[in-house]
């Protein structure tokens, strides 16, 4: 079992940077670290399971993206900070779903962090409870390909 609050658990989870090609935008490669904390993480898996994102060879350019999906609790917040700090620059964080956007359905809970942006800087907030896997792909593409 991971030790609570040491930063080892989430940093370990996020250490593995995966590279995906975006099927709808074949030229786009995204370097993603997936920090799945609750039900929203299933939609990240679904984006891969449904073939919207496919594993690819790393490209030389491009920022690493930390995707925080699910409920951040105050107990887990140090792990999220550690995962963010473990990412090399350049980097960006995507808050995926209501829980990490604001606390979501648990915004009034004593134990839930009221948005992951209380502990790390967030570049894109994706709405949904959970958001669709397509919304993840759209947000990643928008982040990687400047409009």
């Amino acid at each position, binding site marked *: 079992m991971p030790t609570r609050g040491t930063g080892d658990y989430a940093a370990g989870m996020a250490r593995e940077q995966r590279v995906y090609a975006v099927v709808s935008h074949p030229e786009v490669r995204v370097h993603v670290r997936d920090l799945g904390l609750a039900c929203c993480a299933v939609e990240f898996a679904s984006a891969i399971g449904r073939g919207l994102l496919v594993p690819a060879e790393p490209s030389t350019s491009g920022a690493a993206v930390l995707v925080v999906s699910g409920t951040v609790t105050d107990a887990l917040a140090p792990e999220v900070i550690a995962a963010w700090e473990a990412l090399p620059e350049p980097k960006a964080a995507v808050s995926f779903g209501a829980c990490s*956007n604001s606390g979501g359905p648990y915004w009034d809970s004593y134990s839930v962090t009221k948005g992951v942006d209380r502990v790390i800087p967030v570049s894109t907030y994706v709405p949904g409870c959970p958001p*669709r896997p397509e919304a993840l792909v759209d947000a990643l593409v928008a982040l990687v390909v400047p409009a």
Partner: protein
Amino acid sequence: MSEIPHQARGAIALDAAACTSCMLCVKECPDWCIHIESHNEEVSEPGARRPRSVAVLDSFTIDWGLCMYCGICVEVCPFDALHWVPEHDYPAPDAQGLRHGIARLEEFGPS
């Protein structure tokens, strides 16, 4: 991109003309996502015994950063002013950007 089912709960569109500012959605939303401001105006009609009081909607905001897409607001609205649309692609660069007012909610349009 794969096709989004037409009944997908992507966003809730507002028909502001149908909204009577009755506040039912505001009260029933389990997450307190909806904020409404309105004022009353008196309308005097010729021959009426007394003026009527009519609520006028000033602002209607849904905070998608909080919303859990349960649909209770859509269900409780007695005037069909809220309805689901499959639109799902509206991330925001800051948390405030997930608060949509009347104009943006009307843009989602009829499904």
